[in-house]
């Protein structure tokens, strides 16, 4: 029975197709060393400072041990010598949709990009493997002076801005995987919003990994100047693979005084992908940063979006959901660093474990000395769907200031029999009832998403829940 279910899910895996990718125009050899890093930098024709930055980062990566706190035998299983660190699907970026190669277009068709265009969802940066092959910026964005491009183009065209902010939020030495990303990064998004400008349509990028043993190391930098607003959406899907892939992104957000950034991610990597991501935001005076973070796929995700609240009145929010099924471990959470008085933060985490999956919430609330008037509230709820599954909660609160209000609450439970009974008494089957209850459990997250994403997520959950009962 269990096997049948697995096959069913595998067969129906929404994005579980795979294109012929023989047309890769450049593919570095497997493994990582200074030659590869040099090659990547040369291919991209980068300025000297970036080249040196990559080499410096590689040294840090090689010298840093795996994080000891994770105690994760899964992590130890990553073979860094068996991964491609850079490849480029076509020689140059397509300027318009017509210029994009046919096989890549087919991939995007299935990801729904033309649809997104039709729906005026904004500029699209579509990342195919390591390099952006296509992106368009809508004219209204250009008129407002908003810069939205892939990171490589950002470096070429706006070197002054990139150089000023790049790696200032997450330095390479932050952790082993941020060092790796800093050494071999490719693609990702670069966004700069001028002062006072409000971008009223969400900006989106689609990412894909599409070659076996292919690593993806995108690098995103978003700078919101004073009083501006931007919402960025990152949706990840990856096709079926037989061996493990590594995805290790670095995302840096900078919200200047009074700026507001919302960053939405839905991660649905295929269940062989390691998703080890560093995401961090700086929020200055009265700035507001929101991470909306959904983790559905991957073999192992380790991701703790952070907000450093650097100026008085800054506000940080993380709303995250995690779903782990057979063979999956979602180790997700959030960090709020209160480095200024009268800053506030809210973390809401919801997780569901099923078929032996494991979800962990790992978080940190840190309040520095003298930061009075800080308020922080953390709420974690976990649902366990069967006796094989596991849920952990590892919150940490470090408080060095007196006049603060720090609260943490967590619950772990199963779907209530009374709830099930009630819903089933209205004529629903057990599967339908369970799906409905789980969807309701995730509702606070789903309602923060644009409609297409909300619909897709509900469908994904329904698909995952099928066969989970009985």
């Amino acid at each position, binding site marked *: 029975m269990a096997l049948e279910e697995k096959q069913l899910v595998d067969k129906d895996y929404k994005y579980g197709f795979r294109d012929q990718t023989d047309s890769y125009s450049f593919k570095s050899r497997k493994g990582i060393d200074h030659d590869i890093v040099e090659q990547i930098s040369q291919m991209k024709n980068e300025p000297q400072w970036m080249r040196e930055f990559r080499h410096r980062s590689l040294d840090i990566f090689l010298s840093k041990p795996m994080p000891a706190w994770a105690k994760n035998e899964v992590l130890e299983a990553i073979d860094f010598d068996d991964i491609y660190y850079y490849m480029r699907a076509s020689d140059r970026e397509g300027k318009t949709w017509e210029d994009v190669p046919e096989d890549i277009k087919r991939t995007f068709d299935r990801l729904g990009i033309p649809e997104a265009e039709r729906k005026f969802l904004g500029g699209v940066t579509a990342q195919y493997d390591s390099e952006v092959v296509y992106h368009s910026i809508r004219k209204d964005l250009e008129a407002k002076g908003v810069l939205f491009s892939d990171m490589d183009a950002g470096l070429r065209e706006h070197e002054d801005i990139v150089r000023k902010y790049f790696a200032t939020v997450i330095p390479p030495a932050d952790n082993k995987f941020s060092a790796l990303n800093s050494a071999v990064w490719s693609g990702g998004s670069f966004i700069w919003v001028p002062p006072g400008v409000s971008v009223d349509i969400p900006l989106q990028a689609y990412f894909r990994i599409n070659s076996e043993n292919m690593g993806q190391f995108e690098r995103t930098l978003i700078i919101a100047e004073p009083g501006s607003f931007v919402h960025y959406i990152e949706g990840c899907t990856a096709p079926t693979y037989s061996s493990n892939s590594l995805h290790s992104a670095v995302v840096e957000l900078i919200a200047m005084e009074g700026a507001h950034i919302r960053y939405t991610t839905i991660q649905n990597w295929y269940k062989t992908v390691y998703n080890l991501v560093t995401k961090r935001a700086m929020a200055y005076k009265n700035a507001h940063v929101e991470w909306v973070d959904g983790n559905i796929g991957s073999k192992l995700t380790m991701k703790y979006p952070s907000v450093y609240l650097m100026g008085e009145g800054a506000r940080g929010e993380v709303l995250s959901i995690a779903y782990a099924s057979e063979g999956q471990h979602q180790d997700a959470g959030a960090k709020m660093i209160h480095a200024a008085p009268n800053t506030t933060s809210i973390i809401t985490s919801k997780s569901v474990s099923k078929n032996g999956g494991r979800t962990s919430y790992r978080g940190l609330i840190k309040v520095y000395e003298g930061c009075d008037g800080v308020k922080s509230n953390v709420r974690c709820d*976990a649902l366990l769907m069967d*006796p094989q599954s596991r849920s952990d909660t590892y919150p*940490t609160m470090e408080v060095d200031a007196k006049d603060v*209000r*720090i609260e*943490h609450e967590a619950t772990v439970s199963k779907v209530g029999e009374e709830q099930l009974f009630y819903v089933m008494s209205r004529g629903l089957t057990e599967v339908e009832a369970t799906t409905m209850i789980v969807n309701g459990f995730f509702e606070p997250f789903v309602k923060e998403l644009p409609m297409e994403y909300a619909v897709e997520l509900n469908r994904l959950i329904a698909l995952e829940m099928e066969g989970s009962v009985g």
Partner: protein
Amino acid sequence: MERSSLLDRASGPQPSLADAIKALTANEPSWLTDVRLGALKRFEGIATPTERSEGWRRLSLEGIDIAPVAPEPSPFKLTVASVDRARGVIAKTISEALLSHEPLVREALAHGRGGRTVGKYSALAEAAWLGGAFVHVPDGVELSSPIVAEAESGTYPRLIVVVGKNARAAITETHRERGRFTAGISDIVVGENAHLTYAHVQECGPKTVVFSHQHARIAHGAKLVTLNLGAGGALSKSDVEVELLGAGAESDMLGLVFARGTQQFDYHTLQGHRASDTHSDLLFKSALDGHSHSVYTGVIVIEKGAQRSDAYQANRNLLLAEGARADTEPKLEIEADDVRCTHGATVGPIDAEQLFYLGSRGLDDETASRLIVEGFFQDVLDRVGDERVTRPLETKFAPHLERER
């Protein structure tokens, strides 16, 4: 042969300590020697902690000497009502108990230490204990009054409490050592359907480094209520571990910390649900004055198969002064689905509204905040549910409620 080779290796950095431990084994049963030497080996296998070590990085070791000292006897003053003695209650030194009750002592000392966090100093205490006390409440006996065990000197105290089936007992273990270093272990075994209230009171000297490991095993249908009261010591690091081993086992775990000056308290708790239908409820509170620092890390573990378990865990910290700090890390590890588990943690100052309210009744700020702290703690003492145990503690700790100036 094995024994001598182990000790040869041990004679590296701490030759005198290893020799001293070897000397302790002279007239002991061989199983006990094995336990000591195994623990010594674990002690030596763990690096000396620094401020960067996991489990230590939130503490300051500035001006704190954590180097171990030589074993010195830890006698307990034992107070047992004569009527209870007459009912067969035993309270004597462990070496005496080894002669009269070896199987029970062995059962308490050589069960293989199910706890998950046996650290360096706990291993040392297991190897180096000297003196100590053994308390046994036979099956079905209900104590007329609580047993009191008090230690005022020694370096590696050890207390064993074995409560038989269907017995009802209460015991208070008090520590007032004033040396530089003490590392103690308390082993608690609660038999089927028994009920034990256990208070651990730490009022050691202001310069003492205090390590304590309390490990309790609770059988089918039994209930253990523990209260930890932390007041003394320069640095106090405690592991409080409860394992619920039989269906229907239950534990309330309570803690109170009064920290002032530059005192550091580090409590680690384990609520280990290893059987179905078990219940645990933990409440640890600390009030922090001066430049004191409290670290709380606690974990609820619900093992596979421990269905229909309920577990609760709360840590509340009251910051009374600008320089006080509180770190809290309440953790859950759940491997069964039919459970109900919640935990919560708070850190904050005295509620300004409460102060205002009491002020409006004519109380000055100092009296008002003292009343609020008393109330904050009284709530925990009430939950112990045995006034014979908590009443003496209320008066004893009144001086600690005075605010620092």
